[in-house]
């Protein structure tokens, strides 16, 4: 298991339980207001942003892994 996949796995699990019970039940409230939104709506927006961030970490990690693998197989070939 590569580090970027572990980070993503943890983030996805955190997202899941923040979007369903019990995490969502705890954080879905009106106060405090953030960016003019009730906290409950900001909470969902925040997790869309965090999911995007997590997917970026996953994607760039996967790309680097592939590049390394390609470089390694080229070395073997030469």
């Amino acid at each position, binding site marked *: 298991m590569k580090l970027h996949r572990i980070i993503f796995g943890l983030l996805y699990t955190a997202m899941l339980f923040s979007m*369903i*019970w019990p995490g969502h039940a705890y954080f879905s409230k009106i106060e405090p207001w953030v960016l*003019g939104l009730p906290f409950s709506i900001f909470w969902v927006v925040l997790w869309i942003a965090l999911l995007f961030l997590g997917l970026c970490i996953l994607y760039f990690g996967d790309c680097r892994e592939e590049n390394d693998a390609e470089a390694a197989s080229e070395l073997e070939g030469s």
Partner: protein
Amino acid sequence: MDWALYICGAYLLMSLIVGVLPGLSSKKSVNNFVAADNSINSVLLYFILGAAIFSSFTFLGTPSWAYERGAASFYIVILTMIGVVPFYFLGTRARRVGARLGFITQAEMLGYRFSSTTLSVLLAALTVLVLVPYMVLQMKGAGFILNTISNGQIPEWVGAGISYGIVTIYVLVSGVSGVGFTNALQGGLMIAVALFLGWYFPHHFYGGISEMFEALVLSGKGYMLTAPGLEKGGQEPWSWWAFSSWCIVSGLGMSSWPHIFMKAFTSGSDRSFRKTLVLYPTFQIIMIPIMFIGFAAILAFPGVEPDTIVPFLLTKAGLPALVVGLLSAGVLAASMSSGDTILHATASIFVRDGVRKLPWNKPMNDTVERRAILASIIVVSGISFYFAAVSTLSLGAIIGAAFGGVAQIMPVLLATFYWRRATSVGVIGGLIAGISVNVFFWAQPDMRPVPMHEGMFGLFANVAVLILLSLVTRAPSKAVVDPYFAK
């Protein structure tokens, strides 16, 4: 009101042109028609996936959920957040094995993995069974909107006929490329319309987005803004059991839908496929302003039948024609961009995994198969049109239930790529058990031990039977399974 019709007309004409053009120069083969010779780039795939999931339900249903049930509508966003991630992993693996063994549909890939024609035909039947009502729903949405903004001068069946006549033409001419290019147009339009309207409605009625929410809280409706929102009817609070399980079942369903899953095969490389899914949250965020449309109507227009809140806003809220036209074009785009994908997939799967696999049918060559798919597109479109024109069934309820059935494909997909020991008897048994339990609790909601989505109980039964039957049957041959696990 005329201006609104002109805007819709201009949009329809553009869809036709953009949809037909790519087909004029393309190769006439099955793979090109169904999977674009695995050459769809990530920008196009982004719009195909984004726009396929953004259906007329998103535009008509999300505001009505927000209007009636408040924060319960969050589930429509959350399901896509949960669903996009399994697809990142499963889709990448599917793409690889598809490129190696030449698969272009989900049923084909699963049928080979478990050396089972039965599984392939079963999945094809299930696909047609759930996708046709889905198609009918999209058509009704399009007909409904044109009927509404023409003040009834365009009957619903004519509206559905015009918009889906156009869809049928460009799908026939251009296949998946037509779907892709029109979805880029439709997706772009939807993003623009959603952002504009999500800003416009709160400003028009309250003077701003936070002013709108403050007004809701001040009027004592603050309870609508916190999850899990309200039960259908808008009186009782919804339960966390229901909210959580709806999010999970629908999320798993979203990444299992055959018409969405098979788009993994259209992609040229792992990287381009993954890039699409990384960008997917930019489509999800658009659902938030669509929710605002419904929230804006709560205080401005109390007491409207929730299912008709969008048509109400279109006709009775005294909005400028430009806004009415944009919202209508947005709904049409949402309907057609899902409808074209569904039409294309249903016909392709029906021929490739159903008809072609039946034991009494002779092998088809590429030309015959392509013609059979084209013929099926006309048939599927015709059948859906018939139901859209005559049926008065509440299809929204059927689609809600269909997610529970489609989610039952997820354990099969997971077993395909992550558990070598899974056997054909195991997955077929699991599917049948899952779907039966799902249908049982759908028909008998009072029998549920806890108020969860019926699909959840189906999934428990499905996984248990899959594991049990796989362990007592003979492991599949290594040669067949190996490509599914290769790096």
